[in-house]
C-alpha cells in the first residue's frame, strides 16, 4: 500500500563498522512520506548508528543513502532533516529562546520567518513560559522538550528522533505523541524507542534491528490489525460515532470496565492506527492502545530468538 508513496530517504546496502565490529550489515531501509516508522531493537543493535548515518553525523563505510530523488549527501539536504539525538543537544549557557533562534539560523530559516517559526515551536512544546530561562537550570523533561523543539523547528521533510519520550512525564508524553502524529501529516518520522506501546500507538510501520541486521516487524504485510483500546470518556456513544465516522464500522467489541472507562476492540488497517490513536486521545483519556490479534512484544521476542 506504500509502494506509490515517494520515499523521503532510501538506504541501500549500508555497512558501518567501528574498529573490527560491524555495527550495520548490508542494511536496506526506506522511509516514506507521511510515515511514522518505529525503530526497535536491543541495546547495541545499531539503532543510534543508523539514525546518525541518516542525520549525516556519521558516514557509512559502504552503501548509498538517497534523499528523495537526489543524493542525500549534499549540503542542501541538511535543511530537510530535523534531528533529536539520544541526549538532547543543548547549549547550556543559553536561554531557551536564544538557543532555538540559533538553531533556526543554522537551519537556514529565512530571516523574516525566524521569530514566527521559533514562536510556533515554543508554543507547541509549551516552552513559552520558560523561554527566558537558562537551559542549564531546566529539569530533564523540559530539556527534552527543548531538544524536541529544535528538531521540529522549520519545515524538515524528515524527523529523526532517538528515544524522544525519555525523561518526559505522562502529560508531556501525551503531548509529544500528539505532536508526532500531527507532524506525520506533512513529514516522515523515524523514531527509536524501547517502549513497544509507543510503536503500537504511533507507527504505521516498525522495524526491528538486531546485531546490525534489519527485520521488518509490521507494515504493509499486516494491513489489518485488531486493536484493543482502553479509554476514559464521559459519552461513549459520541466517541463510537466519531470512530465509525472516521474508519467505518470497525468497532468489534465495546464494554465498560468501571466508571467512565471502556475497553474497545477495533478492526482497522495499520495505516489507520496513528489517526485512530489521535482521535481517541483528542476525544477522551487514552489509557492504552495495543494490537490484540498479534502482540508486537511477542513478535519481537520471537524475532530476537531468530535473528542472527
Amino acid at each position: 500500500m506504500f509502494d506509490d508513496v515517494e520515499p523521503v530517504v532510501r538506504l541501500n546496502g549500508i555497512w558501518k563498522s567501528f574498529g573490527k565490529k560491524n555495527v550495520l550489515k548490508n542494511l536496506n531501509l526506506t522511509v516514506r512520506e507521511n510515515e511514522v516508522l518505529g525503530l526497535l531493537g536491543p541495546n547495541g543493535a545499531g539503532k543510534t548508528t543508523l539514525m546518525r548515518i541518516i542525520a549525516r553525523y556519521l558516514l557509512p563505510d559502504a552503501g548509498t543513502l538517497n534523499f528523495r530523488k537526489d543524493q542525500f549527501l549534499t549540503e542542501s539536504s541538511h535543511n530537510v532533516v530535523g534531528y533529536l539525538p539520544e541526549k538532547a543537544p543543548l547549549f547550556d549557557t543559553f536561554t531557551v529562546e536564544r538557543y532555538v533562534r540559533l538553531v533556526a539560523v543554522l537551519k537556514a530559516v529565512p530571516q523574516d520567518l525566524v521569530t514566527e517559526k521559533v514562536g510556533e515551536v515554543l508554543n507547541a512544546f509549551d516552552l513559552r513560559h520558560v523561554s527566558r530561562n537558562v537551559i542549564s537550570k531546566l529539569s530533564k523533561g523540559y530539556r527534552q522538550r527543548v531538544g524536541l523543539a529544535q528538531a521540529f523547528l522549520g519545515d524538515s521533510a524528515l524527523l529523526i528522533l532517538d528515544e524522544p519520550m525519555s525523561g518526559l512525564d505522562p502529560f508531556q508524553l501525551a503531548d509529544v505523541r500528539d505532536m508526532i502524529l500531527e507532524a506525520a501529516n506533512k513529514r516522515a518520522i523515524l523514531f527509536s524507542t524501547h517502549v513497544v506501546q509507543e510503536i503500537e500507538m504511533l507507527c504505521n510501520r516498525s522495524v526491528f534491528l538486531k546485531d546490525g541486521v534489519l527485520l521488518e516487524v509490521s507494515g504493509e504485510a499486516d494491513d489489518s490489525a485488531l486493536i484493543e483500546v482502553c479509554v476514559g470518556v464521559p459519552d461513549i456513544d459520541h466517541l463510537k460515532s466519531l470512530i465509525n465516522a472516521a474508519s467505518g464500522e470497525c468497532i468489534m467489541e465495546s464494554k465498560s470496565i468501571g466508571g467512565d472507562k471502556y475497553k474497545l476492540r477495533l478492526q482497522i488497517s495499520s495505516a489507520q492506527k496513528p489517526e485512530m490513536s489521535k482521535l481517541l486521545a483528542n476525544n477522551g483519556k487514552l489509557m492504552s492502545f495495543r494490537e490484540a490479534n498479534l502482540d508486537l512484544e511477542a513478535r519481537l521476542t520471537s524475532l530476537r530468538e531468530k535473528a542472527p
Partner: protein
Amino acid sequence: MRNFIALYFRELENYFVTPIGYAILGSFWLANGFFFSFNTLFISAVDMVNAFHNMSILLLLMVPLMTMRSFPEEYKQGTYELLVSLGVRSWVMVMSKFCALLTLLFFMFLGSAVSVIVLVTFSEPDLGPIVGGYFGVTSLGAVFIAIGLLIAVFSSNQIVAAVVTWIALLALWFLDYSTALVNSKFLSEVIIHLSLSVAYLDLIRGVIDLSVMTYFFSLIGFCLLAASTVLELRK
C-alpha cells in the same frame, strides 16, 4: 557565512554569559597591571618590552585554559552532533572558535593598553616598537590558540586538552634547548628557528621579522586545517 557569523557570536556569548570570559580578562589585566607597575616604579623602564615579555608568559599559561572547553564541551553536550547534522562544515566550526578566541585576546590586550596611556602621559615612549610589539604578541597568542584548538578536537576531556596543550606549548617554547643534543649545524638552526622562545625575543621589541611571521602564520594555518580534517575524519 551565515553559519560562521551565528557560531562566532554564539562562542563569544558563551564566554560572556558565564564568568569564564570575565575571569580570563580580569586575571590577565590584573597580572599585567602588576608587572607593568613593578617595571615602571621599581626598574623605571619606559618601554613595553618587559610588559610584552610578561604578556607572552601569561598567554602561555592562560591560552590552554581558554581553548580547553572548545571542542570537549561540544562533544560532552552533544552539540557537535547537532551542528554536524545541521550541515555546519568542520572549518566553519574551527574558524568560528578561532576568531572568537582571537576576539577575546583582543580584549585582553585592549585592557593592557592602559599601560601605554600611562607611558604616553608621563614620558615620551617610541610608539613604533609598541605597535609592533602588540602585533607580535597577538600573532604569538594566535599561534597558541591554533595549537590549543588542534589538541582540543582530539579530546572529550577538558583537563586532558588543557594539560596536553601546556605540554605542547612548553615543548615548542623550549625547543631550542634540544640543540645541545644535536650535532648537525643545519638541524640546530632549524630547531632554533622553530623555537617560540627564540622567535618571541624580536617580537617583544617590536621587530617584525618576516621569517618569524611566515613561521607563525604557517603554524596557524596548519593547526586550523589539521583540526578541520580531524573533525571530518571523526565521521
